[in-house]
C-alpha cells in the first residue's frame, strides 16, 4: 500500500480551512493546516507535504511572499503550490503565478472535482 499523500492547506479563514480539510480527507489525503504563510513554511519544512493549497491574502505573511520564500529553499523549490483564493481578479492570477504558484483556483470553488484533478495532475 502506498502512503497517503500529504496536502498542506493554508488559509486564515477557519471556515474555509474546514471545508478544504473535509473535502481532502474524504478524497483520501492526509491533511495538514496552517493559518498564514509563516506557519505554512514552518509546517512544510518539517512535514514535507506533497502539495500546498495556498490562500493569498493572509495576516503575518501572505501567500505570495510565502510562495516566493518557498521557492528559495532547496526542499521547496519544486514543491507544487496551488493558489486557492478569493482574489479572483486577473491581476491576482498573474501575481500568483509570478510568485511561483503552479496553478490558480478562484474561490468560491463551485465544483470540487477541480481541486481533485489539479492535485492529481501535480502529483504525477
Amino acid at each position, binding site marked *: 500500500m502506498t502512503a497517503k499523500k500529504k496536502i498542506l492547506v493554508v488559509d486564515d479563514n477557519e471556515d474555509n480551512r474546514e471545508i478544504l480539510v473535509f473535502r481532502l480527507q474524504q478524497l483520501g489525503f492526509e491533511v495538514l493546516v496552517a493559518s498564514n504563510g509563516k506557519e505554512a513554511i514552518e509546517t512544510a519544512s518539517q512535514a514535507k507535504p506533497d502539495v500546498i493549497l495556498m490562500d493569498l491574502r493572509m495576516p503575518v505573511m501572505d501567500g505570495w511572499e510565502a510562495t516566493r520564500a518557498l521557492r528559495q529553499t532547496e526542499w521547496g523549490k519544486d514543491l507544487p503550490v496551488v493558489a486557492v483564493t*478569493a482574489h479572483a481578479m486577473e491581476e491576482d492570477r498573474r501575481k500568483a503565478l509570478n510568485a511561483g504558484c503552479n496553478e490558480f483556483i478562484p474561490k468560491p470553488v463551485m465544483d470540487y472535482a477541480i481541486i481533485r484533478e489539479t492535485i492529481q495532475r501535480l502529483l504525477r
Partner: protein
Amino acid sequence: MDKANILIVDDEMGPRESLKVILKPYFNVYTAERGGQAIEILNQIPIDLVTLDMKMPGLPGIKVLEKIKQRDPDIEAIIITGYGSMDTAIEGLRLGAFDYIAKPFDVNHILSLVRRALERRNARLKLRQLKTEFLANVSHELRTPLSVVIGFVSILLDRLVGKLSDQQQQILEKVYKNSAELLELIDNVLCLTSLNSGDLSMAEKEFDVGAMVKGSVDRYRKCLEEKGIDLSIQSPAAEVRIVSDPGKVSRVFQNLLHNAIKFTPGGQITVKVHRSINRGVVDLEIIDTGIGIPRDQIEVMFQPFQQLDGSLRREFSGLGLGLTVARRLTDFLGGTLDIRSQANIGTHVLLSVPYKMAARENDAFDQRHQITVS
C-alpha cells in the same frame, strides 16, 4: 521617486537642444527629430511626458499627439507652437495635451509647465491604482463569505456528513443555486467595472473550447431539467483546442447561455461549436426557442441595467448586466457578437472569437504545409 522620462520632439536643432539643456538637470531626456522617430522611441521607452513641435516635416505634430493619446492617454504632452498658430494649439488641447507654449520659450515657464503636467499624471496614476486596489478588496470581501456558504452547502449536498431527506435536498439545492447566481452577479459587476476603468488585460492560454462549453452547460443541468429544456451540444471534433483568454471567453459564453436559459420557458436550446481555421475564429452559437426579443429592442438590450421589462412587477429578475458584459468582453477579445431574434419564436446568438493556434497543432500545421510546398 525616479526621474521622469521626457521626450522632446522637434525638427529644428535650436529649440530641441535648448529644451534639452533646460530639462536635462531634472529629468531623463530623449530627443526625436521626426514624428515617426518619436513613435519608435515611445515603443521602447516608458515616456512620461512629450514636448511636441507642431510644425514638422513628415508626420505632423498633431497626428503624433493623436497617436500618443490613442496608445496611452496618461502620457502628458506639451505643445510647442512656432508662428502663433493657435488653431493647432487648441486642437491639441482638445486631444488631451496639458498646455501649449510659444517659441521662443521662457525657461521658468517651461519648467513649471512640465512639473505641473507630471504632477497631473502622477495623481491620475495613483488614483487608478487606488481604484484597482479597492476593486480587488471588494471582490475579495464579497467572495470570502460566499465561498464559505457554497463550500458547506456543497458538502451537505454531496452527503459527506450524512443522508438528506428529499425536502432537505431541495432546500439546499435552492441555497446553492442562489449562491451561484449571486456569484455570477458579483463577477459581472466587477468585470464591467474593470472594463470601464481599463484595468483588463489578455491572459492567453491553451484550452479546449468544447470542454469549456460542456462545463458551462453542466452548471445549469439542474435548472434545465426543472424548466424542461432539452439542450444539445453540436461539435464536430472531440476537442477544440485554441489559444485565447479562457476566463473571458467562458464569461461571455456563460452570460449568453444564462440568458438563453432564463428566457426560454421550456423547449429546445442548441449550442454549436465550430472552428474555422481559415478565418482564425471559433464560432459559438446558442439557438433557443424562448420568448425572443423584438427587433427594435436588440440594441437596447446591450445597454447596462436594461431588460425588456424594467418594471418592478417584471417576470425576470436580474440586473441586466449579462449582455452588456458579453458585448464589451467580446469587443475586448476582438470578436463579434451577433444576435437575431423573433418575439415568441426564439433567439439565435452567434459569438465569434479570434484565436491563435495551439502550439502542437501549429507545428503539425507547419509540417503539413511544408510537405505540400516541397
